[in-house]
């Protein structure tokens, strides 16, 4: 289904079945509901795990953990250039092989416990003091299914995924945004993680709707993006792609005083084309603005379940949402700029990532207050606004998995 723009109609009129989708406090506070999400959604679908460009060379690897799934995964590039994923667990006595934050390059993966070592393809290569009884060829690392899309690496924890990667991608597999140079451009990135007291959906919601911008971000980005013709940051387009969705925001040329200080102004002056903040001229790149919106500002893709990609002119960021418990979530955010040519551009990027953290902290603080409010039990149902239709779509997709 796809309508893109709503004209005079309400989104809920265009998608009446979504207007009926219930969004309850229970879905965000109940341990039972959370356990079902983990078993029926996260254990069965494709989860974003990291970037192929972080493991460009044979032996490059990193570990991705999903605490609520008790999953610890090694992603590694082989000598044949193939990206593989394995459980980060030694076949000897199940010791974890690498620490949770491991990233680097190794010719082999060796267990610190008894020195068993594995090749980049997972084969057990060496067992110190081998007793001749163990069958080495049967004791390779346990593989995990991998899918790669635009350099984004996804894993599926089912032994034999019921849902193929292509089926999960659905309409995103030949979407115009795939032309964006995720892999081709040399990017420089800043990234961080923050664990907060909120359900993973509550956190993700902050990065799906823009209805909150005029209020929650009144001291920060609202002063940049506000426009007399669109004071409540209505989306210019909304699209649904099977399990995934996109909100496209316009960006009117600012006619107001953004009250920028000297350092913010310096970031605009020295940042070249790569900083699209503050209404500066956009850098064109293929794959942006598939709806052809006039005064386009941002395409915000929500990939089900744990991943978002936000494309601006000249910068982009991803968000990973890692459920920890019904009321705990890790937010991982990483922002990308074209590689700096000089100190001035680097300064502008560093300033822009500082701003990104500030705005993210405002979002995450709101998520914690949102969670705490739901936990009071004051009200069973959330009353979602028409501009928040993507939040309903996400709950409907979760329900589809749970009822499958």
């Amino acid at each position, binding site marked *: 289904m796809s309508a893109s723009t709503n004209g005079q109609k309400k989104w809920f009129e265009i998608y009446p079945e979504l207007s009926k989708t219930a969004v309850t406090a229970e879905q965000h506070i109940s341990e039972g509901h959370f356990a079902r999400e983990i078993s029926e959604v996260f254990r069965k679908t494709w989860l974003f795990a990291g970037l192929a460009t972080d493991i460009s060379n044979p032996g490059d690897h990193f570990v991705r953990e999903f605490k609520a799934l008790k999953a610890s995964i090694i992603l590694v590039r082989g000598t044949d250039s193939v990206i593989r994923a394995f459980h980060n667990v030694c076949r000897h006595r199940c010791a974890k092989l690498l620490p949770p*934050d491991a990233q680097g390059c190794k010719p082999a993966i060796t267990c610190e416990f008894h020195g068993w070592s594995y090749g980049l393809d997972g084969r057990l290569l060496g067992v110190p003091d081998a007793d001749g009884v163990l069958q080495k060829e049967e004791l390779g690392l346990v593989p995990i299914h991998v899918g790669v899309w635009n350099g984004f690496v996804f894993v599926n924890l089912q032994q034999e995924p019921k849902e193929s990667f292509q089926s999960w991608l659905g309409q995103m597999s030949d979407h115009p945004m795939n032309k964006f140079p995720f892999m081709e451009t040399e990017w*420089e*990135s*800043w*990234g*961080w*993680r*923050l*664990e*907060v007291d909120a359900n993973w959906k509550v956190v993700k919601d902050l990065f799906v709707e823009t209805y909150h911008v005029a209020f*929650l971000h009144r*001291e*920060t980005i609202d002063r940049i993006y506000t426009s007399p013709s669109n004071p409540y940051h209505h989306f210019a387009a909304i699209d649904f792609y099977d399990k995934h969705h996109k909100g496209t925001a316009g960006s009117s040329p600012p006619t107001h005083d953004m009250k*920028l*200080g*000297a*350092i*913010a102004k*310096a*970031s605009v*002056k*020295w940042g070249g084309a790569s900083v699209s903040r503050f209404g500066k001229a956009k850098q064109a790149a293929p794959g942006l603005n598939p709806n052809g919106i006039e005064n386009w500002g941002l395409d915000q893709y929500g990939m089900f379940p744990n991943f978002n990609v936000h494309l601006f002119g000249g910068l982009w960021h991803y968000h990973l949402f890692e459920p920890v418990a019904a009321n705990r979530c890790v937010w*991982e955010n*990483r922002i990308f700029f074209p590689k*700096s*040519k*000089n*100190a*001035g551009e*680097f*300064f*502008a990027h*560093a*300033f822009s990532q*500082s*701003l990104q*953290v*500030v705005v993210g*902290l*405002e979002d*995450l*603080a*709101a998520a*914690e207050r949102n969670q705490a409010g739901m936990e009071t039990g004051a009200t069973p149902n959330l009353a979602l606004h028409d501009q928040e239709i993507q939040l309903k779509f996400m709950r409907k997709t979760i329900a589809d998995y749970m009822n499958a």
Partner: protein
Amino acid sequence: MDWALPTNTLRIQKRLASSPEEIREFYSAITPMIDPIIEHLNQFPLDKMPQEQHGLFNLLMAIAEVGIYAEWFNGATEPPIAAGLGGKVQMRWEPQPLAMQR
């Protein structure tokens, strides 16, 4: 100057450990010189920044980190509506053009 720190993690820690007065003082000291500092550092290739410029480069990175707190939050060390969360941010990735040269 004790704001010349080599990583973003250290700059964030410094911000959180500072008083609003200290942030405003650092901001007032650097800001009038921001354009000359950048013009000066732009003479050098980013990936071959001379050793004697590293201190100034790190000062520039520090003002990039705290500038918004001085300009929008009057020197508050965290966004006012998110107090208490800033200290939990863990930097995981950051480009370090100076470290690449050692």
